[in-house]
């Protein structure tokens, strides 16, 4: 009884890990899709969401297998960047996800860490795939990135393997509150420093960041935030001479 329980437990965990890897395998595509939504509102230049989805879907389901068969039969036609992304990045990760289903993970910390690192390396390989390679003796722009990218794929595969072969710690617990609010504060700062100026931005970001801890007392935080803002507003532009917008643009005009 205990045996079957244990077995089913690892089985469910493996499926969720494998599903996570599948998501990772199409993460760049999803990211580009989200990014492309902005074009509807006229932000940035690029393809619209529909075009992005179409391009990647055909690349994933038709273009890449076609290119594989083409390569096997000696056809060296230049593949598009979507097809290359599918070939270099997505397919290997799908393969890893499928393999994961049949493995006992003995150290999730190492295994998952290794696979994510591998994804980063594969992504770098794809990103440098359009660069020139060796020309005679001299390195092209793409030689070194491909060299180190390949090396990192091998190393991360090694790390993932140790996660399968030897016992180790399970996945560490990820908190959401701290990272979320600290990131929100950083994003808010980056997006509004130009238009809102240092005073408003610093104070608002301080309060957003303070939300990241459940021990925050609001009055106290507001007082410290105000003092810090005044301090920064004096220190950076006047004492250190770093030019910086101070007040919101619409107030100055």
């Amino acid at each position, binding site marked *: 009884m205990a045996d079957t329980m244990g077995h089913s437990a690892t089985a469910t965990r493996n499926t969720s890990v494998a599903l996570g890897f599948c998501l990772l395998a199409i993460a760049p595509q999803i990211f580009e899709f989200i990014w492309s939504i902005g074009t509807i509102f006229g932000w940035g230049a690029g393809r619209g969401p529909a075009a992005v989805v179409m391009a990647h879907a055909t690349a994933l389901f038709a273009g890449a297998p076609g290119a594989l068969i083409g390569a096997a039969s000696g056809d060296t036609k230049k593949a598009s960047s979507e097809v290359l992304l599918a070939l270099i990045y997505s397919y290997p990760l799908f393969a890893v996800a499928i393999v994961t289903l049949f493995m006992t993970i003995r150290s999730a*910390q*190492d295994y*998952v860490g290794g696979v*994510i*690192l591998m994804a980063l*390396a594969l992504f*770098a390989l794809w*990103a*440098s795939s359009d*660069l*020139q390679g060796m020309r*005679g*003796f*001299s*390195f092209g*722009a*793409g030689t*070194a*990135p491909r060299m*180190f*990218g390949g090396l*990192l794929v091998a*190393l*991360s595969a*090694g*790390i993932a393997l140790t996660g399968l072969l030897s016992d180790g710690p399970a*996945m*560490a*617990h*990820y*908190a959401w*509150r*701290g*990272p979320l609010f*600290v*990131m929100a*504060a*950083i*994003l808010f*700062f*980056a997006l509004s*420093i130009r238009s809102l100026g240092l005073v408003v931005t*610093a104070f608002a*970001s*301080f*309060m957003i*960041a*303070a939300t*990241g*801890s459940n021990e*925050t007392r609001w009055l106290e*935080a507001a007082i*410290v*935030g105000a003092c810090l803002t005044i301090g*920064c507003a004096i220190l*950076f532009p006047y004492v*250190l001479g*770093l*030019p*910086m917008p101070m007040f919101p643009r619409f107030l100055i005009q």
Partner: protein
Amino acid sequence: MDIFANLAHGFAVALSPINLLMCLIGALVGTLVGVLPGIGTIATVAMLLPITFGLPPVGALIMLAGIYYGAQYGGSTTSILVNIPGEATSVVTAIDGHQMAKQGRAGPALAIAAIGSFFAGCVATVLIALLGAPLTKLALAFGPAEYFSLMVLGLIFAVVLAKGSVLKAIAMIVFGLLLSMVGSDIETGASRMAFNIPELADGLGFATVAMGVFGFAEIIRNLDAGAEMNRDLVQQKITGLMPTRKDLKDSTPAILRGTVLGSILGILPGGGAVIASFAAYTLEKKLAKDPKRFGRGAIEGVAAPESANNAAAQTSFIPLLTLGIPPNAVMALMVGAMTIHGIVPGPQVMQKQPDLVWGMIASMWIGNLMLIIINLPLVGIWVRLLRVPYRLMFPSIVIFCAIGIYSVNNAPVDVILAGVFGLVGYWLIKHDFEPAPLLLGMVLGPLMEENLRRALLISRGDWSVFLTRPLSAVLLAIAASLLLLTVLPALRSKRDEVFTESEN
């Protein structure tokens, strides 16, 4: 006798009022950073880089150097008094130092830590002055192949001295090398892995990544550690700073050994102050007649690591000043500071910028003197600072970091990138990857690639050039044997032993 002339020149530079002031500010900020947990040296130096824009180069570097060795100092204070190591380098000091404080001997512990640090600082200063010139001559004999091999050796050292799995440390270095390749290619100008984002065309800023991985990631990590750390403050007043004669007799050999060990480990690339303090503590425990005293307030356990980390912090300037190769992440930021002021680190700096080099060396000695004079009376104030709750400190650090990064290039994208690397750093911590080798790889990446390409171009594509040039072959052989030794089980357990000290 050149050395004396050079040192005299250095003191003349360092004793000018503005440089003295910079040295004092650096030492104070360093102590502050060392005292406060949750904000490290690397993040601070990165944060203060933009501030040095307006300063003259000598003053700027003197201040940044002061922060580095000041932090080694401050870290020991809180380790001893409150059992909270403010810096990774003073983790081992807490073991015996805090025990001494509990026995009412906080004064002698602090005094010995200060004396040990000061002595080590003096020795290291002389060592830099002595080794500087000959190493510079050696560096001039280096071709691209030798430089490449030297950097490989440095990175291997970083692996050997890193905590935890060797495989993971190597992977982190390669990841760092890959990150360093984002941006324009040095030779062809082709844009690499930049995805047409204009801000990435110049590459990822080193300060940006450092701030993300060491600043933001650390904050996020501390937040999910949750509740206030347990701070059993030593409440009673510190009386009687003077150590007894027995204390001095016990700690003198420990200080000497710590200084020697720290100086050596500091010069080696990849090591630096953290490993030096761990190694010095382990050595003392091995040599002691009665190892059981360690962990119960042995004064050697304070003297040795404190001298070692200070010596290492200073000797790590040697490879930077002579070869232009930063041996650890803080030194890498110093490279950044130098380039901001238009100085290219390398063998020519010694000749072309004698003011800078010797002024900085002399300032280290002055800085150490300042630290010993300032710190002992100010201990009470530093400890009071610890009562500032983290819930107020962390948003302040976030804002400071954000403004700091923004002001480097006036680029909001840099702030977002630092945030992204904060998340990456959080992920690295969660999967037990060490971020320090990553940064070292990122710093050495461009230098390495450039020298590799040049070496192969000169040898007309012949890879054996790295083995046929004797100097390069020796360096690579050392690197290979080091790597082999680390993987061997016997040495591995030794290496793990050094690091487990902090956990029990």
